């Protein structure tokens, strides 16, 4: 039967990809888990069973505590900032003004650039030098008589990571704008018209009709941006290199594994990152596919 032949052929053709994902994603995750439960440090592999030692040590490790704190600050500033900015940009662009396409492309272009380029440029914009060596944004603030805005950016004690989140907002807010704009466009005009006829103000329309209808978009944005901020790595490296006050789990993993050769600990950080992302992403995938099946 030729149908059977087609069926076998399709399975045959997709198997290499499935096998690759099976090995390189799931097999490697399992392998990492095994490394994270081992004593391995140094160049030579050492799979001596260590139980949860690497994980337990991490949670009492001051550096990892800094990482968690930095990740939380970064996530808060980055996610809230990108969502708010993206939403307002989308609402403004949805008003049917001339030049909409131009502004939309402009707000989105940073997404085409690498975090490394963004980081290298922003590092000069956020130059923390003081006095007559003022430069970058600080100098701009000073010339505009906005001296109260002058700050130490990423070198600010304890909160420096928030400055890096600003550069990330610059890079990613176009993305939230794009998904909100797509969401706004899918809301039928009749809904707004009906509300207007009932005497609702523009603000009320957004507050009581549009925002609730956009909540699935907001949820996607929260999850996608949230999972990105857990992974943040290149941007920080490009702005500040490997500095302890701006450390995050991804940098710690890289450094401790490949510079320090603490493979067991590095693997444990990788797995903790994976777990924190899986908690966000697995329900998201299930929800999206279920919604798709219902359509």
């Amino acid at each position, binding site marked *: 039967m030729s149908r059977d032949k087609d069926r076998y052929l399709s399975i045959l053709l997709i198997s290499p990809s499935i096998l*690759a994902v099976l090995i390189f994603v799931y097999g490697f995750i399992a392998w990492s888990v095994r490394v994270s439960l081992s004593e391995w440090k140094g160049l030579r592999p050492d799979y001596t069973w260590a139980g949860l030692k690497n994980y337990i040590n991490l949670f009492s490790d001051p550096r990892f505590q800094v990482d968690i704190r930095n990740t939380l600050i970064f996530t808060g500033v980055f996610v809230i900032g990108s969502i708010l900015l993206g939403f307002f940009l989308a609402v403004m662009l949805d008003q049917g003004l001339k030049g909409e396409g131009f502004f939309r492309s402009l707000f989105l272009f940073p997404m*085409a650039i690498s975090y490394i380029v963004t980081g*290298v*440029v922003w590092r000069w914009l956020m130059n923390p030098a003081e006095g007559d060596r*003022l*430069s970058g944004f600080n100098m701009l603030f000073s010339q505009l008589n906005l001296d109260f805005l002058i700050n130490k950016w990423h070198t600010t004690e304890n909160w420096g990571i928030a400055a890096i989140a600003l550069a990330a907002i610059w890079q990613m807010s176009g993305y939230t704008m794009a998904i909100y704009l797509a969401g706004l466009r899918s809301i039928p005009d009749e809904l707004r018209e009906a509300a207007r006829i009932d005497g609702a103000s523009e603000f009320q329309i957004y507050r009581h009709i549009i925002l609730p209808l956009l909540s699935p978009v907001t949820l996607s944005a929260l999850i996608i941006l949230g999972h990105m901020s857990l992974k943040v790595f290149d941007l920080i490296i490009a702005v500040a290199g490997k500095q302890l006050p701006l450390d995050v789990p991804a940098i710690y993993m890289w450094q401790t*594994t490949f510079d320090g050769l603490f493979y067991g600990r*590095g693997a444990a950080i990788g797995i903790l990152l994976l777990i924190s992302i899986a908690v966000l992403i697995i329900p998201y995938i299930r929800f999206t596919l279920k919604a798709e099946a219902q359509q």
Partner: protein
Amino acid sequence: MNKLRIGKNWLYIPLVAMAVFYLIPMYVMLVTGFKSFAEVDLQTMWNLPNGIHFDNYIEAFSQLAPSLWNSFIMVIPAAVISSMLGSLNGYILAKWKFRGADFIFPFILFGMFIPYQSILIPLVIFINRTLIPIGLGGIPALIIAHIIYGIPITTLTFRNYYASLPQELLEAAKIDGADMLGIYRYILLPISIPSFVVVLIWQFTSAWNDFLFAVVLTGNRSWPITVALNNMAGSQIISWNVQMAGSLLAALPTLLVYIFLGRYFLRGLLAGSLKG
């Protein structure tokens, strides 16, 4: 579409202000790149250059040329091969559902969200043991990594596209005697060119901009542009105007793609949040 009403023109004020905000880094990158070495002073970084000088670009290019080349020879096969794989997988998952296909799909999808730190150690060991001994370390290893970890997103984009095509299209071809590969080759492939553009652009951009795989899998001679630029920026001896020129060179290929094919870029972006 009766949204255009008088009194909304004030919106141009915040829009232009935001446009300025988005352009500031580009402005600094461009202006600084065109300054002469004599003008290089952090105190005058906002000023326009006195005339156009290409010294910085020449200097940056002479330093970054090998890694720009590395990036090109890495990105092109990575994008092309992972798009082809994604197209074939997407076709099979959408139109030739075998038993378990719906079960396998979310497992493939999850692969596009994982933090690569969770597979990095095995990946490096694997490459050291299998690819480096046969001379495929560096750039080839990086290409392979981008292809494999690109499978989830390329498969997703194509699957969503093929799933949106009516089943009748296939049935008609089957009655005419076309087999599975014939349908793909003569019916689906020709109409999926726009999807190919979307996926190619997406893979091109993400491989070009990748830093994590690049920094772990390549060495001095095989550095792609992101790693070389980061090292240049971390160096104390290279002046910042050369760094700015270098940043522009590093950003230019993906920026050009964005400028000329922005519509497709946006579609890839939206596909990345799972919705095709």
